[in-house]
């Protein structure tokens, strides 16, 4: 594998593992942001410019900030004690089993032998044309979904009590 992929994979994995194992919540979210940025670089390396930059804009600039606001508002910033209950081990065993299954499936199938085809000449313009012609129905549905999510998140988060004040 190329050196670029190796570095990005190590950075992403470091961020992801730190996100799920650190004690302090804010450190978890900051490590998660590092993982997201690493993934965005991987998308850019795979020549998916639009998706990589959208990942940066939406996840790093949106979801991470949302998570941070939620942590601040619920005052969860005290260190959460690592659970010593039995299902901690069960969870890790299940995750390891899933990974072994997936890795086995990947190695068994012949996808490792695929060569990389030539770089796609498509740019953002083709994505826009495709969104407006072939994928118009998912676009409209996602618009509806986002509106519903926006209104729903505001209603759920502020509660009906504040509206009557």
């Amino acid at each position, binding site marked *: 594998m190329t050196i670029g*992929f190796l570095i990005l994979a190590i950075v992403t994995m470091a961020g*992801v593992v730190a*996100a799920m194992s650190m004690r302090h919540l804010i450190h978890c979210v900051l490590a998660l942001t590092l993982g997201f940025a690493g993934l965005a670089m991987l998308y850019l390396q795979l020549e998916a410019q639009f998706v990589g930059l959208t990942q940066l804009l939406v996840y790093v600039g949106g979801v991470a900030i949302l998570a941070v606001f939620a942590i601040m*508002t619920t005052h969860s910033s005290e260190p959460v004690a690592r659970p010593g209950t039995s299902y901690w081990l069960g969870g890790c065993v299940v995750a390891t089993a899933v990974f072994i299954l997936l890795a086995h499936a990947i190695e068994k199938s012949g996808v490792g032998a695929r060569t990389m085809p030539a770089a796609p000449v*498509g740019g953002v313009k083709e994505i826009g044309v495709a969104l407006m012609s072939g994928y118009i129905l*998912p676009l409209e549905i996602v618009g509806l979904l986002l509106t519903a999510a926006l209104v729903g998140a505001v209603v759920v988060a502020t*509660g009906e009590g504040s509206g009557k004040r």
Partner: protein
Amino acid sequence: MTTLSHYLLLSALIFAVGMAGALTRRNAILVLVGIELMLNAANLNLIAFWRYGPHPEALTGVMFAVFSITVAAAEAAVGLGLILALHRHMQTTDLDKVTGMKG
């Protein structure tokens, strides 16, 4: 030479770590973080298959990934709103303490 299996292995690793976190952590926000990691791993899978697939000019993988990112962001917003509502009722975000419907 990075082959497709390298990207798929990395994505499987991220998925496994996200799943481990979502299953074991007690704080509701970290469970949501684990779910977001699983979605991101699936996105990486989609883009890798799009790049190494036979017809990259059809843009199927890119479209799928864009819609997946959008839906994941909406779901994170609603999920965090739910966590805020939970905190307002129970004054905690510890999932072990939310046992009102037990029994």
